[in-house]
């Protein structure tokens, strides 16, 4: 049995096809999900891909968060469905309060596209088990609104509970508090991050590295083991 991983397309999603390709390259079956459908087609996990859903108008992720698909997704995520939010997907997850904090415009006020060095702080989530804790990886980053903010109490709590999953190394590309690049919920099934693992799955293409592939193999192993 192979795992079926859904990828939601919102109007303005950009990396939905790339995410499907990454899922395929990892050996799982990508399933296209449509924002107007409440039906998750019984997938085993869901990725909310990058892009500018609804143009990022109002606030990144703010309008998508009210899509029909999100009604179901919010319930199922709370019940344990593995969910990964990449970039715009991360923004949707914070707007939906599945993850704490909020995303704001980069502190330098520009879009930034770079091959970003990260440290994997938590290799225990559904999406990071194929990494080692402390491992340093390079993953492309590209966003306008990547500055993670939360109040001090929330930040302390995230740190104390090991819920900071990725941290920026060398350069903090957007002014995120405590260099946070990605976080998880308390249960470890919902993960959001700004960099784009789906753009680091093939040699030659994009950054030319494959440091992003373990995201997709991690979830595949977990799902296959569970079935």
């Amino acid at each position: 049995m192979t795992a079926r991983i859904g990828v939601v397309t919102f109007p303005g999603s950009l990396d939905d096809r790339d995410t499907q390709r990454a899922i395929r390259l990892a050996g799982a079956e990508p399933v296209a999900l449509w924002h107007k459908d409440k039906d998750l087609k019984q997938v085993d996990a869901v990725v909310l891909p990058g892009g500018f859903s609804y143009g990022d108008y109002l606030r990144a992720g703010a309008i998508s968060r009210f899509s029909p698909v999100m009604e179901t997704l919010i319930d199922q995520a709370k019940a344990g469905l593995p969910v990964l939010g990449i970039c715009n997907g991360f923004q949707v997850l914070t707007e939906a309060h599945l993850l704490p904090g909020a995303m704001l415009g980069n502190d330098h006020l520009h879009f930034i596209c770079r091959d970003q060095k990260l440290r994997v702080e938590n290799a225990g989530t559904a999406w990071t088990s194929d990494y080692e804790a402390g491992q340093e990886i390079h993953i492309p980053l590209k966003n306008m609104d990547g500055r993670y903010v939360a109040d001090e109490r929330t930040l302390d709590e995230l740190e104390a509970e090991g819920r900071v999953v990725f941290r920026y190394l060398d350069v903090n590309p957007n002014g995120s508090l405590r260099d946070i690049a990605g976080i998880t919920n308390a249960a470890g099934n919902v993960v959001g991050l700004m960099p784009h693992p789906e753009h680091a799955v093939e040699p030659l293409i994009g950054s030319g590295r494959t440091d992003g592939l373990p995201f997709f193999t991690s979830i595949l192993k977990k799902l296959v083991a569970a079935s």
Partner: protein
Amino acid sequence: MSLDTVENASKTPDVELPWAELGLKKDEYERVVEILGRRPTGAELAMYSVMWSEHCSYKSSKVHLRQFGEKAPQSDAMLVGIGENAGVVDVGQGYAVTFKVESHNHPSYVEPYQGAATGVGGIVRDIIAMGARPVAVVDPLRFGAADHPDTKRVLPGVVAGIGGYGNCLGLPNIGGEVVFDSCYQGNPLVNAGAIGVMRHEDIHLAKASGAGNKVIMYGARTGGDGIGGASILASETFDDAKPSKRPAVQVGDPFQEKLLIECTLEAFAEKLVVGIQDLGAAGISCATSELASNGSGGMRVELDDVPLRDSTLSPEEILMSESQERMCAVVEPSKVDRFLEICEKWDVIATVIGEVTDGDRLEIFWHGEKIVDVDPRTVAHDGPVYERPYARPEWQDALQADDANKLPRPASADELKAQVLALVSSPNQASKKWITQQYDHFVQGNTVLAQPEDSGMIRIDEESGLGVAIATDGNGRFAKLDPYTGAQLALAEAYRNVATTGAKPLAVSDCLNFGSPEDPAVMWQFAEAIRGLADGCLQLGTPVTGGNVSLYNQTGEAAIHPTPVVAVLGVIDDVARRTPVAFQEEGQLLYLLGDTREEFGGSAWSQVVHDHLGGLPPKVDLERERLLGEILISASRDGMIDAAHDLSDGGLIQAVIESALLGGKGARLVVPDGLDAFTFLFSESAGRAVVSIPRSEELRFNDMCGARGLPVTRIGVVDGSGDAAAVDVQGEFALSLAELRVAHEETLPGIFA
């Protein structure tokens, strides 16, 4: 004014219409009256005036542009040529590629962010209208002096606008240019190019045929923006002092355009579309008259059915509005419902506004009254054609006589070193990373090469690895010294950039940016540049598939440098064979391909060190360019080279420093016999590249070049890595990578961040 119907116009021949305000000349207006056999209605006048503007009719440039057709080389690759929204080229395996470059210069000066953003939006709609999925964009840009205060307003806005629109559309930005020169102070050049990919059978053309077929407008509602923009924009010298003449600027909505892309492609996939046209300059006037005149029948349009953003618009304004993100499709009646359903799925507003008729007239109705009744060809294709006078300016001889080769050269190794640092840190030669990192290179997951490689490269087939490459180049300084040669140098450089990455150059698009065509000197530059480009394309076997002309780039009497920007598209069978710019491995041998002569006219060195522009540009030898290209392509295919970089502005030392910094590897260079260090490092002779060769391939590579007659010179070795490694010109100076990185990479952030 009350509604001016066709009937009314026939009855009131003496009513004066404001043709001059709409940008028409007296004889042009008289010609309209002659064509119609009566005075035009207000709506007809609106249509003729925008469609006969310089921007839409190419009235000053047409007679010269013909050469691209007349001198077109025989090419099997050409599927659709000049005249359509964009040209289409066969790249093999059943794939076709469409690409084009366009200008959005004037609006970007007035409102940098929106002007540049809507420039990207417009060129991308041209690509969709051919039936293709857009896969990448490029942005050749030119600004005034980097340290001029107004450049700090214009550049960041333009860059943010290009990024804001392209990033939001999900199109990787894979190349372009950034050039600073005070001649562009009041006329920055914002050119934008796009590439799209489709299967051969999916090529669509802008034509309305089949009586009874429906005309559907879809996308954004029509608003009052950009009215008259097309004519006023393109036919008057832009004059800062008269705000009333400022062209209206449109605000773009990239999100809407992304939806347009998706729903258009879905409609294509289901074969629902007979003909299609984007709405750009001249809006509905252009789309309906072009669709109708390219098809077999006529067209009837109910203007009341156009979805409006502002209900107070007059029919004339609706016809002229340049609201962004709109398209027009011709659809068979039985397929209309499905077409509308797809639009609905993507939340795109779509409305049937008319149908194809079996007559030959374009008829437009408003509130039940006929307000336009024209032969659409007369609007779309029979615009005025001018043979503008042209003459070689009298200052040209003096300019050419002011020989840059006679400028004082560095007298010592220290001075040479200081000049190298001055060059690599000068705004034109410095790293453009601060700009290009504001563009998404990764989206769509097919980017093989992007900035700062010699050309951008996109994989188009995941299985076979088939890919396309594109490079854009232009050098206004060379073109000013000699427009014929300058245009050929732009072509040669873009061609070379494509070949350097291992792709075979196939076809050309261009964006010709010049001053006022009413100035005979400018017109001469324009004519010469076209002649040069057409001759060059014929010789290289790369046809011009389309392009764009931007005139009136001028502040008062002062025109910009003549600036033909050339885009070359190439194909590579397997992107795994691409050659990058960065040095890969220590110990590899560095070879210089081609001949180095004392050529400093228009060079970066003459500009940076002496603030000088004079003499003759480098000599062009297109046969040599072609040979060099063949060698670079073979060498990449056969795995003989690991890195390659073409030589252009700044000469050899600039190229070596870039390859070294990118790879994090040093280089030891030896000045070859017969050359002095200065000429070796700074000459800008064309037809050259540096390659890095594994030692095991040296013999084979030399044999290949020897057999084909390409001069090659061993100039050094890749040596050392990390920040302490150096670019070391033996017997002259050494500069550490750390030092070079600061010099090269901190200039633009220092000015603009």
